């Protein structure tokens, strides 16, 4: 946040922008009368839930709007030009020249068939006139790759996108965006698809580059943690209208609009002082002993297969009625662990004890009976419901497979739908008629229809908006009490783990690096890796300034009294 910026002319100004949706949509305008500015060397965050129109604005900035929608009123000015009024030549010079954009999913924004070095070169060659020599271009590519913090640029420029990790791909995207020293960078949810630690690195990179070059950044996000970390100013959007805008301090410390306050409150903040300690019965319900799993990925004919260790001697115990969070980055094996317990992925070694039986020895009917007591809620609410099956059937199928009559099962399904906060008539509708949050409620109802004793939630709220996330978490917490469920909550988001779990297990590359009561792990992490994860929580400094101090106090008293 620099002071010298104030006087300079804005690199982006949006004035009274309204974007009309095609007729028959759920509202006439995607965006209505939106005005804001981005000055050089300034990060402006556009915040809102899905459907708030924030991506529409980003697309309007580079004139990338789909044909069916058009700008109804207002204007966008990027470095003195209105992209909507430019001819194709001038627009090409603007895109990737004056203004560059990075997208959410780096894999689908890179050409899978071209080496990444070539793709960056292309970016330079289309814009630099006169055309620089091959050697110059090559040097520039090397320089860019180094700048975005990629190790070994020589090797990297010859790689294909699929050979890189998500974070590396996003760095390549940023290198491409930086290739022509843009005055404005538009970043549309650039870290949503990434891990916490990678997210932190990418945000820091964007911030550093912005400082070095004095460019303006328009960052679109739904995460107030990210906002707190990087933004200078914030624009809060709801249903296409600006609800509130101002500096970070103003908006986050003393929000004026109720909606902003709601959104901020919905952010899971690892409020350890509020952790309820449920009475945990010391009866072990599920025991995992020395679980092993290695995935072998075949490469070329002569190359040895690549080995990915997903579980390296994982042992854990789940007690009755407790919630155990399993946290780690992607590739740490946390989802595989859940899938192995459900027997959806076959472990290489070890044992899973449940109800005195080893689940791994069970076959056929015995496995079916055991699975009834263990249920799973998957991450993607869009992929985990059969698109051709009515919601009621989806829930009733389970009990029916175990001999409940159809009428009774449907009756029960309707009750469950009401219990998870939906209408009973939802039973006769198809999944595509519901939003992501509603679908996840349906998935929870489906999992609970069999009255399980253990519920595995595999990133069950990661695909949802913050406010919806909070509601679903609250529902899970209620149901847990009501049905005396033991829960394994798999997540990459430590804030959520802190909010819901009694105990936490931290996984890294298939090994448990830390295990303990939630409060202990969050306040006195033993492993360096856990501390790294904790530091990477977006907005931690901001949200926890008063919080963490009191937590430590509350905990020490709690420990003394127990």
């Amino acid at each position, binding site marked *: 946040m620099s002071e010298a910026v104030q006087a300079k002319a804005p690199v982006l100004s949006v004035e009274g922008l309204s974007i009309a949706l095609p007729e028959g949509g759920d509202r006439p305008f995607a965006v209505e009368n939106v005005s804001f500015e981005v000055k050089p060397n300034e990060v402006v965050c556009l915040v809102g839930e899905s459907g708030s129109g924030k991506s529409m604005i980003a697309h309007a900035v580079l004139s990338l709007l789909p044909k069916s929608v058009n700008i109804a009123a207002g204007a966008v000015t990027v470095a003195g030009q209105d992209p909507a009024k430019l001819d194709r030549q001038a627009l090409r010079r603007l895109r990737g020249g004056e203004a560059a954009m990075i997208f959410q999913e780096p894999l689908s924004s890179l050409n899978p068939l071209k080496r990444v070095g070539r793709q960056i070169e292309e970016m330079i060659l289309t814009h630099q006139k006169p055309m620089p020599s091959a050697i110059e271009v090559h040097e520039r590519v090397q320089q860019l790759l180094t700048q975005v913090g990629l190790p070994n640029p020589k090797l990297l420029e010859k790689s294909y996108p699929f050979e890189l990790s998500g974070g590396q791909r996003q760095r390549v995207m940023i290198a491409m965006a930086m290739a022509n020293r843009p005055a404005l960078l538009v970043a549309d949810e650039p870290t949503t698809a990434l891990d916490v630690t990678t997210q932190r690195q990418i945000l820091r990179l964007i911030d550093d580059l912005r400082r070095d070059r004095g460019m303006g950044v328009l960052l679109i996000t739904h995460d107030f943690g990210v906002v707190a970390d990087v933004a200078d100013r914030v624009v809060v959007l709801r249903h296409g209208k600006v609800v509130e805008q101002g500096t970070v301090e103003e908006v986050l410390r003393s929000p004026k609009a109720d909606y902003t306050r709601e959104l901020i409150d919905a952010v899971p903040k690892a409020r350890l002082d509020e952790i309820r300690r449920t009475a945990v019965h010391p009866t072990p319900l599920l025991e995992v002993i020395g679980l092993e799993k290695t995935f072998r990925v075949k490469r070329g004919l002569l190359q040895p297969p690549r080995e990915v260790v997903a579980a390296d001697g994982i042992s854990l115990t789940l007690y009755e009625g407790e919630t155990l969070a399993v946290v780690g980055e992607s590739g740490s094996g946390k989802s595989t662990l859940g899938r192995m317990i*459900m027997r*959806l992925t076959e472990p290489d070694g070890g044992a899973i004890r449940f109800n005195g039986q080893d689940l791994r020895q069970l076959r056929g009917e015995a496995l*079916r*009976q055991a*699975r*009834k007591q*263990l*249920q*799973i809620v*998957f991450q*993607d609410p869009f*992929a*985990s*419901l*059969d*698109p*051709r*099956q009515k919601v009621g059937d989806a829930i009733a*199928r*389970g009990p029916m*497979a*175990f001999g409940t009559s159809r009428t009774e099962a449907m009756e029960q399904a309707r009750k469950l739908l009401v219990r998870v906060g939906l209408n009973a008539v939802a039973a006769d509708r198809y999944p595509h008629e519901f939003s992501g949050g509603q679908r996840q409620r349906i*998935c929870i109802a*489906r*999992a609970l*229809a*069999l009255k399980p004793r253990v519920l595995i939630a595999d990133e069950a709220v990661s695909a949802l908006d913050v406010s919806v996330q909070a509601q679903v978490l609250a529902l899970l917490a209620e149901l847990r009490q009501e049905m005396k469920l033991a829960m394994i909550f798999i997540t990459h988001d430590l804030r959520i783990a802190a909010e819901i779990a009694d105990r936490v297990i931290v996984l890294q590359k298939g090994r448990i690096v830390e295990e303990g009561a939630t409060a202990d792990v969050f306040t006195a992490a033993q492993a360096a890796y856990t501390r790294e994860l904790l530091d990477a929580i977006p907005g931690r400094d901001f949200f926890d300034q008063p919080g963490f101090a009191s937590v430590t106090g509350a905990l020490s008293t709690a420990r003394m009294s127990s």
Partner: protein
Amino acid sequence: MDAVRAFLRHPSGMVGLVVLLVVVVIALIAPIVFPVSPWEMVSAPFTPPGEDGLLLGGDTLGRDVAAGVAYGARVSLVIGIASAMAAMVIGVTIGAISGYFGGKVDLVLMRVTELFQTIPAFVLAILLVATFNPSLLTIILTIGAVSWPPLARLTRAEFLRLRNREFVEAALCQGEGTLQIVLGHILPNAISPILVVTSLTVATAILLESALSFMGLGDPNLMSWGFMIGAGRTVIRNAWWMSVFPGLAILITVLAINLFGEGLSDVLNPRVSRRRS
């Protein structure tokens, strides 16, 4: 219902459907319009079209070509549809087993499929028909037996795609049995492309049957388009109508089915139908 409505708005698909319906109607009313058997001699041999009350002329033995074309439509449609169904049953069963179970089962079944794919379909069909007595049933089974491999491969690919989807895994966790999962969850989600390919198989089946009849390997009791072309081909230079009219009938019917199939494919493929609407 959305698919039906989208299809009604699909121009070439509708053309195909209308033409196909005309062919079906002709097949249905053949015995009413032509009460005399197409095998009966009704005029002098080599009657040109339009003369002697014969709209499309008479053949070398004085049989009515128009009656032959109308009765031939019944044979072609019955054989086309029935053998495509046979191919679908074989192909979907093998593809489903292969795709769902994977591993060694998949390996063996796919090698068998490849065996069928490497032998030219027509040569195999001739061999099979020549071995058994040519009759309606054996011809249907023969054509079915040589047309299933593409359907098996398609079904296998769809099953591979869907088998590890989360909703299938959820059904597994819900305690549903294998058959229930396959028939209730995977097949309904894979059915669109299978239906499209099956409809196109009808067209190739009609062509195969015509080719077999042309070679004289058809059911000798059935008046079919291929047989008519085969019988008329020797005199095509002085009596063109004997082969041209059944030939046109094949062309139009196959074209109509292909148009219909492509229309179906566009409508059932959500990406295309959404772009249209």
